[in-house]
């Protein structure tokens, strides 16, 4: 398992990295997907720019009433962040469900999100959180919503030369209940399906609901039909079930050795109901 020859640069600054990327280099973060692909020679970049040495990309902080997570924050750093645990528990719960401890030590949120594996865990949570992604190029900076970022399997709104530098998520106070529920693919640790739910209840009615779905189709999405159905209703088991039943509606479901399209759709519904139920139970 030997990769093809490649150049490797570990820049100290983001500007230096963006300059290299503008000339066609490929960014390397945790390497959890890129390195195996290179070893199998399915990917053969000529030049890798290692983002992990750039201090400016590694942070988790609160600013302006939002939470900012640098691209190279590892899954473990997110999982164990006291700030996130208190103010965005959905993200810590999701990070803890990724792969295994070795993967969580190496893998980064930026790498995972930019790679856009259709079975990755974060995208479900980030859709439910209506996260924003800061994309930087050598001469540009823009912010893209989760809804616009995930385009297709392994395809995002990132333009050549751009990197994802930062993920921005809202602060969820104690009145918001969240949950990530996942069916694990036993070999890879990826999600066969992963369902993220955020809910609020006001005066006995569901006042706010966001549902993110990963694993089911070519990219993570928000199940807006299910959300609309649930909003304004009571959180009865029947209403949960009725909303969950819609999460896979109209979706061209993935099918592979580990789960057929029908089974995936069914699992999405089951895990949506579980995520909603658990999220509701967590409202303080």
């Amino acid at each position: 398992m030997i990769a093809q020859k490649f150049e490797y640069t570990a820049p100290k600054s983001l500007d230096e990295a963006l300059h290299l990327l503008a000339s066609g280099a490929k960014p390397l973060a945790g390497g959890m997907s890129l390195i195996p692909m290179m070893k199998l020679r399915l990917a053969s970049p000529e030049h890798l720019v290692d983002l992990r040495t750039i201090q400016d990309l590694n942070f988790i902080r609160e600013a302006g009433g939002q939470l900012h997570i640098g691209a190279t924050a590892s899954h473990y750093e997110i999982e164990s962040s006291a700030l996130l645990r208190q103010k965005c528990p959905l993200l810590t719960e999701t990070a803890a469900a990724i792969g295994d401890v070795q993967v969580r030590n190496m893998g980064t949120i930026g790498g995972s999100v930019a790679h856009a594996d259709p079975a990755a865990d974060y995208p479900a949570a980030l859709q439910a959180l209506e996260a924003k992604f800061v994309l930087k190029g050598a001469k540009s900076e823009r912010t893209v919503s989760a809804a616009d970022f995930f385009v297709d399997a392994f395809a995002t709104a990132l333009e050549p030369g751009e990197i994802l530098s930062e993920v921005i998520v809202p602060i969820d106070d104690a009145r918001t209940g969240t949950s990530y529920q996942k069916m694990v693919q036993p070999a890879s640790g990826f999600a066969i399906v992963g369902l993220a739910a955020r809910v609020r209840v006001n005066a006995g009615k569901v006042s706010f609901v966001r549902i993110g779905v990963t694993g089911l189709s070519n990219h993570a999405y928000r199940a807006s039909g299910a959300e609309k159905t649930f909003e304004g209703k009571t959180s009865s088991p029947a209403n949960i079930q009725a909303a969950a039943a819609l999460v896979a509606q109209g979706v061209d479901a993935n099918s592979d050795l580990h789960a057929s399209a029908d089974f995936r759709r069914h699992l999405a519904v089951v895990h949506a109901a579980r995520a909603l139920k658990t999220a509701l139970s967590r409202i303080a």
Partner: protein
Amino acid sequence: MATTTTKVETFVGKRIRRREDPRLITGTATYVEDIQMPGMHYAVILRSPHAAARIRSIDTKKAESAPGVVCVLLGKETKGVGAVPCGVAMPDLRVPQHTILATDRVYFVGHPVAVVVARDGYLARDAADLIEVDYEVLPAVADPEKALAKGAPAVHPQWPDNIAFTYHQDGGNVDKAFAEADVVVKQRIVSQRLVPMAMETRGVVAEWRNADRQLNLYTSTQIPHLVRTIVAGMLGLEENRTRVIAPEVGGGFGSKLNVYAEEALMGYVSMKIQKPVKWIESRRENFTCTIHGRGHVDFYEIAAKRDGTILGIKLKLIQDVGAYHQLLTPLIPQLSVLMMPGIYNTQNIRADIVGVFTNCVPTDAYRGAGRPEATHGIERMVDMLAAELKMDPAEIRFKNFVAKDKFPYATATGLTYDSGDYAAPLKKALDLVGYAKLRQEQADLRKQGKYMGIGISTYGEICAIGPSPATPAGGWESATVKIEPSGKVTILTGACPHGQGEETTFAQIAADELGVALDDIVVLRGDTAVVQYGIGTFGSRATAVGGTALYYALQDLKAKIKKFGAMLLESEDVTLAGGQVVDNKTGKSKPFQEIAGATYRALKLPPNTEPGLMATRFWEPPNFTFPFGAHIVVTDIDGETGQIRIRRYVAVDDCGNILNPLIVDGQIHGGVAQGLGQALWEQAVYDDNGQLVTGELTDYALPRAHLMPWIESHHTCTPSPVNPLGVKGVGEAGTIGCSPAVVNSVVDALSPLGVRHIDMPLTPEKIWKLLATKNRDVGSRGATK
């Protein structure tokens, strides 16, 4: 000079930590990959991407002129090297010529086509991409049942029926048994292909020393002496100038009980380039080129009386051979036939094996080698019979066990079970798990629409392989014990243990026999220039056969020590105990170490006695040993997702006397892990084109530590009369006992839906489909007469 310490403390039977572990845990052990030599070159093998193709041409020019490349070798240049051998002789065995590199045709994905040698491994790998092979892709067949169908592509054109061998065995009168039966239950049972997946892939370093006409071959193998004999033969070298070294071996599980093309190929390369050469198998190659295990489609029929008495068993066994026979390929399903009656008292069996060529990597021995398949078959059939007769699965087993006063017991398949008390572990396991209470709980849960299952497997297996006439290459084992002048002890075992803990257990045996400390004993293995000829470690044999050779070598030395002790004490009546030779009359004693020194100093010798303390024994076992046990698995099934949760795993294993309970626990745990792997997750899936779909660890679901249940490991002890240690073997028991217990448990859970059989692996989707459709007709129905 350091003196040895003598202790009265005994070691056999104690939970002693493995002496080999510090180097393994601290990462200081030396594996093949760790070996470096001056001038060493590196080989990369180009392999076929097609399951079946004719090679029209190969252009190596670009690769040969790539940086650092020394040579590129093709099959036409290695034609003089002997074929990769099949070690099994059978009357109608078809053995295709298995050259070390493909010549005009490839037969499976991963078939070696060319070898590139360069001054470093990176350059060799890059150059391999520059070789241009023009393939004419041919139709392939990857499924053994499809390969048997009329009009299937012929794997080997000379044998259009794809039949590699057939084997028939009859015992008793099976026709009469079936004619007299009240009930006959039939089922097709698949034991899927598995990838053995040693953590260390294979690897070879070959070092040809021209001046000495000597080949040193470092290879990750379970059988260094057999590799030496065979590779020397393949390369036309002298056996005494071929040295095979198995350094640390990072797992084998049968996959390294073999002789592979690469072992001879690297020898050839080193001779050609006159430099040492290293080849390390990639994980991808390990998936596609190292043998697979299992690969059965079995058609069982079991005949019984209405009271549950089993009268006879029929088995039609389709063995997926793959494209070639490796060392023991055709033998493995025969082991299944030998064990097909399990531990039940039935004297009427009929078995027909058909071995089938497919365009896949060959199958061969994988932990349990034929016995997990047989146990899975009989244990599933007994459960189905119990269901058909509405009997409790424990009760039907008690009814049919070979009674404990019937040993030695001659089976219908020609074996003689050495000793057994089959009811004992089942009774113990039922008590431990709280069987009656669990059945009550199950009934309550069923009323709530919940699925909980209790699965029993009572297995027997065949170990301590084995008497030489019953094995392809000699079934004895050897041991040399050297006691140095200082009294320090060196054991050379021919068994080549490689992770099974004999560096500890053999030292325990010797320490107790000689009365010395464990630290005074070194166990050496794995180097044909150091250790006398030996067979190797497989078939749970190293301790039962190799340990017995050690035991007898120790008896020889004890007799000699006593002779010298008696001479020094001027006594005729002495005892060797606690590291002392004691005059039984006067109580005077001489320490063991002083006597050891005297045997080498040789100032005075007892009559007809030579100086020195060294003994070698080759022990031929008179029989196999037959461990047994009962595993009970309690499962809860998620009715929405089909996920199976193992609530309890109770294993009661009887492996005879236990030398080190800690090591036995470890063997059971590891064995159960691999059994669970087959039952729940693992499957080597080839598509119709012969591509291995589960060819990466992201798709091949290997059992992980965090997926393991707590294993409640217990024992009964029925010593074996076959060897003086009373041991039976435990390396494969966990795997053999496990899978039917899991499947029986899940089928039990789903039995209210009419489910009677599910093939492995028990994926959530399979379970969900059964739950969703409440399928009442899974597989073929049992026919009640």
